[in-house]
């Protein structure tokens, strides 16, 4: 097919207009999420066929109310449509508008139209028109807006074929500006502007001077010209306001004749639900019930699949070992790569369940109400109502949580959210908490009802949360960053969630975790495997030495093999590393064996338990009960008492509450803040707090 053509489409629209529904409807699962070069905004691209010979690639641009950006996400819309990087320029723009809020949607349309690009206006949720008493004269709109206009219903798959026809004929669409911006606003100013940029249209010149700091691909000469022009003319802000008002006047005049709404028919579902969900008291009660339901499900529903995944990888590892000839490569696969992959896969159930809930809450419109309810409280601590989503997500995994902070428009509030999110107890800490709590806290009931062990677990979550909040407060007072952005959140209409959209969000976020954190976890697992399975001379002669020391043992017995394994780990590179840090961690009550486990848990915290199992040469490494029994027997060489006693146990628990013990999180923070400064600060501060607290509690208790 040499004459096959690909049409490049950019999909734009206000948030909550069903843009993503249309994207999913057009592309199905033929979509991938990448990054825009140099920045961290997700770039969603999909592909579909228009007819036998022509296909289309479509970019789902972030939702925005205006071409003038207030967040990083919105900046992408400006850049892609006005000054795109090479090969990023779309052939045609499809703008999705909400039939109920057409007036506000048309503001963005009028700005885009003035960029002189072909644009198709798809008015979505047309199936709701009758119920809401709305009627539109489409033919008149086409003339007045000077472009193709059509009604669609993305969720019901209506109007999609007509849209495809319009896309195929995009070359016939008028690219005339609507002149929302006219020289008449200020003859002197715009006359001078025209003279400074003779090769640009008036609107292009206007965007150049108002947005040049947001345009990466603008030439330096143009940037300087823009700056110089601004130095002489300082009433830009006033003119921007005037421009917006004039645009709305134009839109109003058009809609007055082309758009009719029978007010009596509007439903008051929104008002009724808002009264309850945003109530001063019930609002919070409902929100905490929802939170409780989410946590309950993360732990309850995820346990089955997690055990299944755990067993699956254990068996895969055993099976592979039997199939392959013994050797270094087999060793790498069986003890390095497969457990590494297992360490990633084990988190998938919890992450998928959490994002299932978050997607449903966002789809229904409830999340915006939570932002409204929580904003003031969060602001007391330097956060933002929108920080609720990252902090909630943090209970599953800090990586998607930190990425969720992107839609906070104030950089300071976003940065603080990113910095404190790792304090929230993530699911990787849970296996450590579980095993240590069962060792040091008696299985008794408080006042006959509350399980003592469960209470301690709850307290650890609470300490994590409180530390996050307090750190945010301190950061707010110490970080010298000026807040500029305003907090404006739209309260969308309540909707039933579309299963398709929810499913796609869950798949997308889970993929982001697997490929974001997964790479690092896997790479680190392999490095750690190497360090643990290689070592200087004593490591190589392990079998001989063990035979000499234990002449009574049969060299084929499992006992002997375990002794060799544990001797090897002690004399491997990582074993020496553990011993090297022993002087540092001794004040916390740890020995070199725990040191090894601390180091290896940098890949992912839950590796701690598995490493201890190997060091203590537990026969069945997958079985928590046997690891626990073995840990119970471990003796502190100095005191002769059990190693995992109350002081050491508490010290370890608190260490994991505070410490920045996760490479992948550091990598994500580096990516999101675009600097090494913040992850390094985070590493030293969090681990420093962890050390101090553990040291204090250990000294105090023993």
């Amino acid at each position: 097919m040499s004459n096959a053509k690909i049409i490049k489409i950019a999909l734009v629209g206000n948030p909550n207009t069903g843009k993503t529904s249309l994207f999913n409807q057009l592309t199905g699962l033929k979509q991938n999420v990448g990054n825009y070069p140099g920045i961290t905004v997700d770039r969603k691209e999909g592909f579909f066929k228009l007819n036998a010979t022509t296909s289309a690639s479509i970019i789902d641009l972030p939702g925005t109310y205006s071409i003038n950006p207030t967040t990083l996400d919105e900046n992408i819309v400006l850049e892609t449509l006005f000054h795109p990087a090479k090969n990023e320029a779309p052939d045609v723009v499809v703008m999705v508008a909400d039939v109920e809020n057409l007036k506000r949607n048309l503001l963005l349309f009028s700005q885009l139209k003035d960029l002189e690009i072909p644009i198709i206006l798809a008015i979505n949720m047309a199936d709701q028109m009758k119920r809401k008493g709305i009627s539109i004269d489409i033919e008149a709109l086409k003339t007045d807006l000077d472009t193709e206009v059509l009604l669609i219903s993305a969720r019901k798959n209506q109007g999609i074929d007509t849209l495809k026809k319009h896309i195929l004929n995009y070359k016939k669409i008028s690219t005339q500006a609507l002149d929302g911006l006219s020289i008449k606003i200020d003859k002197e100013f715009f006359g001078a502007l025209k003279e400074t940029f003779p090769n640009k249209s008036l609107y292009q010149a206007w965007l150049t001077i108002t947005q040049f700091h947001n345009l990466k691909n603008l030439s330096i000469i143009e940037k300087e010209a823009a700056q110089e022009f601004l130095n002489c003319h300082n009433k830009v802000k006033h003119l921007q306001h005037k421009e917006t008002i004039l645009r709305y006047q134009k839109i109003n005049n058009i809609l007055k004749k082309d758009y009719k709404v029978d007010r009596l028919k509007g439903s008051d579902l929104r008002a009724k639900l808002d009264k309850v969900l945003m109530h001063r008291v019930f609002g919070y009660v409902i929100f905490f019930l929802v939170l409780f339901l989410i946590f309950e499900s993360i732990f309850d529903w995820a346990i089955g699949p997690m055990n299944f995944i755990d067993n699956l990888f254990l068996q895969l590892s055993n099976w592979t070992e039997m199939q392959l000839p013994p050797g270094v490569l087999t060793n790498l696969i069986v003890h390095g790569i497969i457990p590494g992959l297992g360490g990633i896969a084990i988190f998938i159930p919890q992450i998928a369940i959490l994002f299932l809930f978050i997607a449903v809450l966002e789809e229904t419109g409830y999340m915006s109400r939570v932002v409204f309810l929580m904003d003031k409280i969060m602001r007391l601590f330097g956060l933002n109502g929108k920080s609720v989503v990252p902090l909630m997500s943090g209970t599953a995994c800090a990586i998607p949580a930190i990425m969720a902070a992107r839609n906070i428009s104030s950089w300071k509030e976003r940065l603080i959210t990113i910095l404190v999110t790792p304090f929230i107890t993530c699911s990787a800490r849970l296996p450590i908490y579980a095993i240590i709590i069962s060792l040091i806290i008696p299985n008794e009931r408080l006042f006959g009802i509350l399980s003592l062990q469960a209470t301690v677990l709850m307290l650890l979550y609470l300490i994590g949360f409180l530390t996050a909040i307090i750190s945010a407060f301190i950061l707010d007072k110490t970080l010298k960053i000026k807040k500029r952005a305003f907090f404006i959140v739209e309260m969308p209409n309540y909707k039933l969630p579309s299963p398709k959209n929810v499913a796609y969000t869950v798949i997308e976020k889970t993929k982001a975790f697997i490929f974001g954190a997964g790479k690092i976890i896997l790479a680190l697992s392999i490095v750690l495997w190497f360090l643990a399975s290689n070592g200087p001379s004593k490591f190589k002669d392990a079998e001989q030495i063990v035979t000499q020391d234990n002449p009574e043992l049969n060299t084929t017995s499992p006992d002997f093999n375990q002794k060799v394994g544990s001797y090897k780990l002690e004399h491997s590179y990582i074993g020496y590393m553990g011993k090297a840090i022993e002087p540092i961690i001794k004040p916390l009550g740890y020995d070199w064996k725990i040191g090894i486990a601390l180091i290896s848990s940098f890949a992912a915290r839950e590796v701690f338990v598995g490493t201890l199992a190997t060091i203590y040469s537990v026969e069945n490494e997958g079985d928590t009960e046997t690891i626990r029994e073995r840990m119970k027997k471990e003796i502190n060489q100095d005191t002769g008492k059990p190693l995992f006693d109350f002081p050491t146990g508490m010290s370890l628990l608190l260490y994991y509450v505070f410490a920045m013990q996760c490479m992948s999180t550091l990598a994500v923070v580096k990516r999101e803040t675009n600097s090494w400064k913040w992850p390094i600060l985070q590493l030293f501060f969090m681990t420093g707090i962890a050390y101090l607290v553990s040291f204090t509690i250990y000294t105090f208790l023993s």
Partner: protein
Amino acid sequence: MKTTVAKLKVGERGRIEQIAIESIPLNLLEMGCLPGKEIELIQVAPFNDPLYIRVNGSHLAIRRDVAAKIQITKL
């Protein structure tokens, strides 16, 4: 009576003043908060902030400091 959105009580309405446009942030204006338009305070969050308003067909939450900049004539 001249006042600001921040001083309205829940359920009260006002008309946005012509002269005040420059004190309103541009993105609020772009979302429909225009001079001459009617604005209603629907709800106030616990602890008195943010405010939930309806203006020109949009339902928005804004913080009190911004609301205090929107000058209106009470209706």
